[in-house]
């Protein structure tokens, strides 16, 4: 142990005596390790952003779309009976149907008619539970309620973007014109991350839709189903539950699955990054071997005198190997810190959630130590082979 400390002392004295050179040979491992750590960290952090979003959205919402059976000329719908069947499934906690109405021109104020005829605002008939099912809060006011549903009152809720577009002020009494019919705006729904089209939509009750818009029956064409447990299984059985083997089909999907797939870290990109970083480390290792070999020649007199003072070949070899080791250790640690700093900076700038594995940092620092030691083998053995008599120039 004492010998080990003495060797470390001699090695660090040798390195600190030539600070610039030491720094230069340390640059190899620093650059290599920091490049790998930064690239992997940024890659994973960008995905971490998606993962955080996924967390926010929840992965238990199922979207069910009615699909065409054998009927012609009519949009496919899901019958009310089927909706209640879905609602009775054991894992389902909330179901809300929606149906988009067509051919309605929504005008916030007279004079904007041409624009909104060209770019129609979606008008959606839905039930009072929609905010609960989607887990989206209201920005202001209230959502459609049971009274609206029973009375068929002309009330509407608008999406947050539409409210901004209209210049809607919270609590303001305002109407919105749907094909000339005035609807009272009672509330603004916050952004729906999973259905961005809802952000600029107008929501009505099915009762109003049937009364005003020639809807035959209050059947939805799409269902939003919240199933916190066994989500995938529920999504799989919903089409059967809806059709019961009949012609009216339905497709169920979990929209966050796609996001989930996107959030998976790109392994091939990571591997490529690791290869590039590994290459940088190897180049750094060659640099260490190179500079240390020259250093051995320059320090031949020191090596000679150490041999004369009784240090064996083995001790000289270990001394130089320790210098390489110290370079590897400090280069690795510094590289990991620099890499982590870069990841932190990029994450802060782009609003990512920083994802960095401590084990990974330690691992790459260790790789740098390994590379440095291997690189130190040649110069060390060269130092050990030096003949003291030749370097001391006697007589």
């Amino acid at each position, binding site marked *: 142990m004492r010998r080990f400390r003495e060797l470390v002392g001699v090695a660090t*004295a040798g390195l600190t005596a030539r600070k610039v050179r030491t720094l230069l040979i340390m640059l190899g491992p620093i650059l290599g390790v920091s490049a790998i750590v930064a690239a992997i960290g940024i890659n994973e952090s960008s995905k971490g952003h998606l993962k955080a979003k996924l967390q926010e959205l929840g992965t238990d919402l199922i979207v069910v779309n009615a699909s065409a059976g054998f009927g012609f000329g009519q949009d496919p719908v899901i019958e009310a009976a089927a909706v209640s069947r879905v609602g009775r499934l054991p894992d389902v906690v909330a179901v809300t149907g929606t149906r988009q109405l067509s051919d309605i021109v929504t005008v916030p104020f007279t004079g904007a008619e041409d624009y909104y005829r060209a770019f129609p605002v979606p008008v959606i008939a839905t039930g009072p539970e929609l905010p609960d099912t989607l887990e989206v809060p209201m920005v202001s006011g209230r959502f459609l309620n049971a009274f609206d549903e029973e009375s068929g009152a002309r009330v509407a809720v608008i999406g947050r973007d539409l409210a901004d577009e209209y210049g809607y002020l919270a609590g303001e009494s305002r109407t919105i014109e749907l094909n000339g019919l005035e609807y009272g705006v009672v509330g603004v729904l916050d952004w729906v991350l999973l259905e961005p089209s809802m952000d600029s939509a107008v929501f009505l009750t099915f009762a109003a839709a049937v009364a005003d818009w020639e809807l035959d029956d209050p059947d939805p064409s799409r269902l939003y189903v919240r199933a916190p447990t066994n989500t995938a299984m529920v999504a799989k059985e919903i089409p059967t539950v809806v059709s019961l083997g009949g012609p009216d089909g339905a497709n169920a999907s979990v929209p966050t699955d796609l996001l989930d797939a996107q959030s998976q870290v790109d392994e091939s990109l990571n591997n490529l990054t690791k290869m590039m970083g590994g290459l940088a480390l190897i180049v750094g290792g060659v640099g260490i071997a190179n500079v240390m070999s020259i250093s051995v020649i320059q320090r031949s*007199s020191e090596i000679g005198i150490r041999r004369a003072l009784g240090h*064996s070949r*083995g001790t000289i070899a270990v001394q130089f190997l320790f210098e390489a080791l110290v370079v590897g250790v400090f280069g690795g640690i510094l590289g990991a810190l620099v890499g982590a700093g870069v990841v932190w900076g990029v994450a802060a700038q782009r609003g990512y959630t920083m994802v960095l594995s401590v084990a990974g940092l330690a691992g790459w620092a260790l790789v740098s130590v390994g590379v440095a030691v291997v690189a130190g083998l040649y110069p060390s053995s060269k130092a050990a082979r030096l003949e003291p008599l030749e370097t001391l120039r006697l007589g």
Partner: protein
Amino acid sequence: MKVSPPREKGADDVVLALDGVSRVYGTEVEVRALDDVSLDIRAGEFLSIVGPSGSGKSTMLGLLGVLDLPTEGAIRVRGTDVTRLADAERSRLRGEAIGFVFQQFHLIPHLTALGNVETALLYRGLTPRERRTRAMSALEQVGLGERHDHRPVQMSGGEQQRVAIARAISTDPGVVLADEPTGALDSSNAENVMQIFADLQSPERAICIVTHDMHVADATRRRISMLDGRIVADEALNGGSGMGVDS
């Protein structure tokens, strides 16, 4: 040629011995730098090895210092034939038994005076405190205790050589081998260094100076003259005991 011991002494007295040693350089063209030389160095001796360049004295120094191995013959350090030892053992024995002083001082430039002396005391199982104490006392012996934290570049040649001497004696070796120790110094520094060598003499320690400078050789008590790889004279000086003149 065998130089007979000057007087009967116990074998333990011999700290360093060459026994029928030859050293041949080159393979195609053989150069016999040392030719069947035998020499005993005993504790307490103050001797010099002199000769013109090419006489083989540097080769002899390398062999005496166990920095080189002979082509033929044996080198005995305290009775052990080092030619039969592995490098690690041989290095250990060299570190324990022999101290070196070189013409070019050969101090390690990035270490202080104390650090240079301590280098000789590494890997001997000493605590840092013991190492430091021994190095300091060696520096004080050569009158440089005050300057222990100076680096070689901050010192004069004479001072550097005194640091080198402190390094050589810090391990308390049986023999100090000095290679032209005054060769790089002016006359007053040279005198000072020779005085230190004279003071370092003790019944337990031999001092052997290799030089071509007759003034230096004349200050010692036994003078061995070399020519063409052979010892041509072994004389006592200043009331010394080295004898067995033979040429």
